[in-house]
């Protein structure tokens, strides 16, 4: 197997600017391997959310090269984007739940979009909602859920289809510490099943809770990589892809 086949994401000198403003990301280069756990950290405004947007294909970069799942994500035809997006699970910072759908239907959305039959949806969604402690709220609409409950629905939606890569933007920002740990355990469990996990957070305590995780630190739109280990990692991330947490 070649390195290109092995890697799940590769960024090479990626820059991003919105309109004619200054670049919010500059010369970002890194490689993510399957089954790894990454924390993306940095101060507010460092570009974490922008980097995640590129990762979950909501944005095209202004320059540079991005390869995802072995394909060039920049020149990829539009009609192939849905297939690639179905391999991703995303927890948005603002949850982005569909307001007129119940918690159940929000969690079922990725399965329905992927064309799963209704009989294959009910059980996994109910189980997932039970796991995040929302069994009794499955028919509630987002507006009637608390911030923490909405966040748990968003996380359940992101992981329900067992994605190849999970991208989460401040996923524990609105939950109590116990639930935060529980959710991290869920991410770890998924990670052990082979899902690559990228969690953006500025909670330093969270980093210590996943000992085998790797850290990507953004500073004013630039990825801190003094040793070049993120840009040119060894073939397997266990050998040291970034700074160990």
């Amino acid at each position: 197997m070649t390195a290109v086949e092995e890697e799940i994401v590769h960024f090479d000198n990626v820059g991003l600017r919105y309109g004619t403003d200054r670049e919010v990301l500059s010369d970002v280069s890194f490689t993510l391997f399957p089954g790894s756990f990454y924390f993306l950290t940095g101060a507010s405004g460092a570009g974490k959310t922008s980097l995640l947007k590129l990762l979950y294909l909501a944005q095209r970069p202004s320059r540079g090269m991005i390869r995802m799942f072995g394909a060039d994500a920049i020149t990829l035809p539009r009609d192939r984007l849905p297939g690639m997006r179905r391999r991703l699970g995303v927890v948005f910072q603002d949850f982005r739940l569909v307001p007129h759908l119940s918690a159940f239907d929000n969690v079922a959305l990725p399965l329905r979009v992927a064309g799963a039959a209704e009989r294959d949806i009910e059980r996994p969604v109910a189980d997932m909602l039970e796991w995040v402690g929302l069994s009794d709220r499955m028919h509630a609409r987002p507006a009637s859920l608390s911030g923490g409950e909405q966040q748990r629905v968003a996380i359940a939606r992101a992981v329900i289809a067992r994605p190849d890569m999970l991208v989460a933007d401040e996923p524990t920002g609105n939950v109590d510490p116990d639930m935060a740990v529980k959710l991290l355990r869920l991410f770890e469990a998924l990670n052990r099943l082979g899902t690559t996990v990228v969690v953006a957070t500025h909670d330093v305590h969270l980093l210590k809770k996943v000992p085998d995780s790797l850290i990507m630190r953004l500073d004013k739109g630039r990825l801190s990589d003094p040793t070049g280990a993120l840009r040119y990692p060894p073939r397997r991330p266990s050998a040291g892809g970034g700074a160990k947490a």
Partner: protein
Amino acid sequence: MTVPGRWRERLRAFGGAEQAGLVPQGRLSGPMPWVIAIMVALTVIAAAAGLGLRNVASASAEELEGGVTIQIVEARPEVRDAQARAAMEKLRARPELVAMRLVPQSEVDSLIEPWLGGEIEAGNAAADAIPVPALIDARFARAVTPADVARLQADLRAVAPAARVDAQSSWLRPVFAALASLQWLAIALVALLAMALAAAVLLAARSALGTNRDTIEIVHLLGGTDAQIARVFQRSIAVDAAGGGAVGLALAALVILALGRQFASLGAGMVDQGALGLTDWAVLACIPLLAIGLAVVTARLTVMHTLRKML
């Protein structure tokens, strides 16, 4: 899964049933069913007018195109009668003749009464002063062309020098031209209404896309395809168009039946010929179906075009 079950699932997927809940349906429809109902009602009425005019034109043409009127314009009554009889004899020998009659004097008198009054009676002074021609109404098996008229005129000259031959279709030509213009007007109205319906659907689809932009973005980011999203809008507009189309057709049918009854009470022959037949009603019943098709295609094209601008 059984074969019918599989097809049921495919049909549900094609109709957007699985994704129907993605976008709140109430926000999509709004006044759209009523707009479609009005458009369909107007289209059906315009089409009915066009079909009625076509019926009038074709029935009248059928009746008149083989018809010929021969006037014997002769002041002396005995010569006029003799020439009329001779002309009828000559005509009777023609194999393509279907029917022929000498128009009775009373009928001729009633024809000219609006212009000359009721004092024209055979033998009185007024009748002698204004000689009225004898009229022969002949009908041939095929349409009479100007060349036929010229030939007939030449044939009759020997036996009835005072005969003047006119094809009946020639003096109704302006009426047929007016009917044809009205038919084209009806077709143009139907086309304009179809365009107006497409424009209304386009605006509604764009507005619905704008209102539901966030949801559409989420569905896109979860791997939803443009076709999946378009199916939601197609389904919604198809339901609106079906409801609106049925109401529009019912309204138009009421109007057409009421107008038909009013025209029938006029008792005018030409108007009676414009009555709609079963085929005409079948054509009118197809209009709501065409409206559904037009609305669905317009919605799909609009949505797909707008979505292509999104990543």
